[in-house]
């Protein structure tokens, strides 16, 4: 359930909760060629949707869920043609260079979003704590 990161593909399955938006954002910013697969997604929090809308990662597959596909198709990024998962395809190779610097740039954004949360480790930290889940060989961090 939720988002699992496999190589350069994030698979959405079941309900994708607000807590995952931070990690998704970070992960997408780290490499702008990374794709997402919404085929297993049954529901996603508005924060996840806006992450997808703002960062527009290439779509490996759109949602199959009838409600999501009916209402969200218009705002989702186009489906990318890359056929294989995991390996960084030619499409992913191109933006590799500029994106290498992305994680560092992403940090300020994270500190901003944890404002007002004193006793919480914050989403950024939470995202890092979850990093073992990342199985991508191409993980830049």
């Amino acid at each position: 359930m939720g988002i699992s990161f496999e190589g350069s593909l994030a698979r959405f399955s079941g309900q994708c909760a607000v807590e995952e938006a931070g990690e998704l954002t970070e992960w997408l910013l780290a490499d702008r060629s990374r794709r997402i697969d919404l085929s297993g997604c049954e529901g996603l929090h508005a924060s996840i949707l806006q992450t997808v809308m703002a960062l527009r990662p290439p779509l490996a597959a759109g949602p199959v869920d009838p409600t999501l596909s009916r209402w969200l198709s218009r705002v989702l990024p186009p489906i990318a043609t890359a056929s294989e998962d995991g390996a960084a395809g030619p499409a992913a190779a191109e933006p590799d260079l500029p994106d290498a610097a992305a994680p560092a740039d992403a940090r300020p954004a994270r500190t901003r979003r944890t404002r007002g949360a004193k006793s919480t480790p914050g989403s950024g930290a939470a995202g890092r704590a979850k990093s073992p889940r990342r199985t991508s060989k191409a993980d830049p961090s």
Partner: protein
Amino acid sequence: MKTVMIVDDSPTILMSMESILARAGYGVLKADSGENALQKLQGGGRPNLVITDLNMQAMNGIDLIRNLRQLPQTRFTPIIMLTTESSLDKRQEARSAGATGWIVKPVQPGDLLAVVKQMVPGS
């Protein structure tokens, strides 16, 4: 299973809500005070929804909501406030403290389940 935490200092209300929610297939985490609720969450409990009474001894519902919004596992969790007060102020105060919505007591099972369904994703 989706879990709903209910916080109320009336054992009767706890009992009645538990039976309504359990029958509808939700896991129920009960707390008879705000302190008790926070204590139970220290143990790592992660409810999908919190329903709390507004008027409780010691820590009232609004204070509890403020505290819950500081806990990592309930930062974004929908919190429904149970209120007898019809006063708009209280609701606005609760809303600005981080309450997602409210149900007016006495709680009708249908209303309760409708709100829970609306608030808990995938239920």
